[in-house]
């Protein structure tokens, strides 16, 4: 290898920065979807790099379902304050007022109202023409074909048959009236790349990713956090378990895994050992085979 070769992480970084800059140059009013998770942390770091020494030129939008972990909200507020980013929080308040929760509605319907609907409303309200999201193609089989620039019709819906070919690094950002776009600068990153980059760059992440003793409901092989009152099934009780979250969603719908990994290095080691798909413990994905894709068509991503 010559001295003029970049490592895979630096190539991914450079390409993601290129994408973020294109978005800012070519769209009127971009926004970054900030989910507080590790991918969001990486995305924010890339945005800091892209516009350095300037500030991040778009706001971060968090869709708060009100079922997020307390540690997530604390992290969100201090992280955004530290880096001086503008944060917008949006909640589907009328659905919350009407009592929306995953136990009565089921996860699909609940996500539909508190995430998908809330996101579409927030994007419309803000008049954003480009929403930058942290989804990766390796997350799920159906995402393998997702474009980096993913077009949404006037209803915010995704049509798998009507996407534009993406060649070289030449992105077509032209929109018709009312149309919008989701941009996924981390498309080519894998979960391992994300963790390695967090390690390399020393990027702060929500402590829930690290193992510690937490109170859980043990339901067959799944650990359900007790942040809010989970209705117990017969024979179940709360237990202290050494565990951590592999991905962060709403507390009732995010499973934990038993783990001793309390540092980034240990998390990476654990990943390499167990090689479980990242979303295994995210209850929503198991609702229905191909459920992710239905959500995508409806505008969840």
């Amino acid at each position, binding site marked *: *290898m*010559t001295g*003029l*070769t*970049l*490592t*895979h992480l*630096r*190539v*991914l970084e*450079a*390409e993601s920065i*290129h994408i973020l*800059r*294109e978005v800012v*140059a070519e769209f009127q009013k971009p926004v970054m979807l900030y989910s507080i998770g590790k991918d969001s942390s990486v995305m924010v770091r890339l945005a800091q*790099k*892209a*516009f*350095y*020494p*300037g*500030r991040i030129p778009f706001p971060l939008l968090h869709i708060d379902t009100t079922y997020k972990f307390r540690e997530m909200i604390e992290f969100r507020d201090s992280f955004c304050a530290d880096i001086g980013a503008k944060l917008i929080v949006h909640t589907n308040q009328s659905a919350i007022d009407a009592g929306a929760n995953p136990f009565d509605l089921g996860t699909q319907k609940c996500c539909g109202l508190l995430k998908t609907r809330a996101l579409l409303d927030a994007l419309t309200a803000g008049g954003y023409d480009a929403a930058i999201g942290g989804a990766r*193609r*390796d997350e799920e*089989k*159906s995402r*393998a*074909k997702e474009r980096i620039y993913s077009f949404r019709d006037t209803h915010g819906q995704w049509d*798998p*048959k009507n996407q*534009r*070919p*993406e*060649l*070289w*690094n*030449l992105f*077509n950002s*032209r929109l018709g009236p009312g149309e919008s776009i989701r941009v996924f600068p981390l*498309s*080519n990153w*894998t979960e391992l790349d994300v963790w*390695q980059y967090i*390690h390399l760059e020393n990027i702060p992440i929500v402590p829930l990713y690290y193992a510690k003793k937490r109170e859980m409901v043990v339901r067959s092989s799944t650990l359900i956090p007790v942040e809010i009152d989970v209705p117990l099934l017969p024979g179940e009780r709360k237990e202290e378990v050494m565990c951590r979250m592999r991905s962060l969603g709403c507390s009732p719908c995010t499973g934990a895994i038993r783990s*001793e990994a309390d540092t980034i*290095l*240990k998390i*990476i*080691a*654990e990943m390499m*050992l*167990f090689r479980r*798909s*990242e979303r*295994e413990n995210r209850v929503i994905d198991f609702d229905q*085979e*191909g459920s992710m*894709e*239905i959500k995508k068509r409806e505008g969840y991503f």
Partner: protein
Amino acid sequence: MSSPTQDIFAGIDQFLKKDEEKDLLRFTTAGSVDDGKSTLIGRLLFDSKGVYEDQLASIQKATVNESAGAIDFALLTDGLRAEREQGITIDVAYRYFATPRRKFIIADTPGHEQYTRNMATGASTANLAIILIDARNGVLSQSRRHAFIASLLGLQHLVIAVNKMDLVDYRQDVFESICEDFRGFAAPLSVPDLYFIPVSALHGDNIVARSERMPWFEGASLLHHLETVHIASDRNLSEMRFPVQLVVRPNQNFRGYAGQVASGVIRPGDPVMVLPSGRTSRVKSISTFDGEFDRAFPPMSVTVCLEDEIDVSRGNMLVPPSHPPQVTRCLDARVVWMGNQPLELRRQYIIKHTTQLVKAQVRNIRYRVDINTLERHPASDLKLNEIGAVVIDTHSPLFLDHYGRNRATGSFVLIDPVTNATVAAGMVTGRDPRVAGGVLEPDNVVVEADRVPAAGRQARIGHPPALIWLNGGAQLAYALERDLFERGYLTHVLAAQTDGTVLLEVARNMIAAGLITICSADFLYEVERERAHALLGAEQFIDCDASRFDTPEAAVAGVVSELHTKGIVPAS
């Protein structure tokens, strides 16, 4: 005793440091339906442990295709619900795996009628293409197509994987004869690196490890080849190009130009010229979040500050004053048509080239390539999945290099301003008819001076210039001249002189003047003929060996018809 987990923790720091140093290889895969592409990719993902356990578990839950035994590798790469319902895959899908030596990104393009568009898309970002061939069927017209598209998109490395060797008893002669066939037709495509490998995707022969069932094969396994193929020097590191994406100006004290290095190396102190203004300055610093860098090279994303306060905006390009690209409003290119509506001449499109968006029109289609035979045909439009050579006029100047020399500054897409669809992928063939003879013009005469533009010259004359190399005597040359002149071409005979260099120089000037130049030269000028042909390319060079024709009239008619084929038609 320590647990395996602890051992890993102990070694992980070192291991990770090394793992984070891996480089990246992107490849695309091509094959006809049922050649075993999905199986091969599934095998690579699986055997390199890139497939997570529970994805496998969920596949086993969803399995429909029982024929392939325990694990249907093809299902690992299956995707969208609609496609699953129809039993086909539609588009380019990206897959990821890694080994301790490299990270890989596969652009998987399924073979069916959308093939050309998809493969071109997948190949546009790839370093290498794997072309699958079914050992039982040998080289089919599809394989030629795949190799052609790969070469069109500038891939330097092809791996020809002859699959299903188990079904031909792992026979060496079958493999060898396929290699020979393939080499035969791939020769004119000039892909520098071809690697042939016999495999069985289903049984894993020669995929990760060398197969014991084919001891006669002495090469490396597929994975080993992918891990070690040298790609670092495929990039252009000699001619610096820095398309400006954004001007970064957070306060009075800082003004920088953000962009991704397209080619070459930038260092503080380097002289740079800003295109299109032509203003010059020096690089003051390369500024990043991670501090100041002492150099930047592709594909780094950095911010460049200049010594002088000069006007620079998005769409401008920083280049070395000594090696600028072509600055032009007219370009020759090969395009892959991707729109549902065919290309229309003189309709307005938008060209996206580096960080520029510019209005553009297709002036002329030189020819369409029949992708199965590689023959060139005259064409008045290009339809979805067709490939052709075109002349494009743009509203404001682009800063171009030949695609073969610079993928970043030689590539563009065309956008339909009505539907906003991306309708074509383009590769600049570097010739600029505006500067007359194109490549005959030395490359360093580029920045637009106040010369009469060749486009204007051409508009007045009514047709582009061309060189007709005529081996048949002066009398025939003058007959041809008269005939062409009467048809409305502006033409002139150049009778060969003794010195070949002078001959070429005079020819260059006549072409620069916009003339259809008839060069009457015999076989003694074979070297010059070849040079002129190489320099001008097939679009502007017509070779007429009169001995092929029965009568002088037939020779004249032959030349006229070729002028038509190449789209060099006088205004009527």
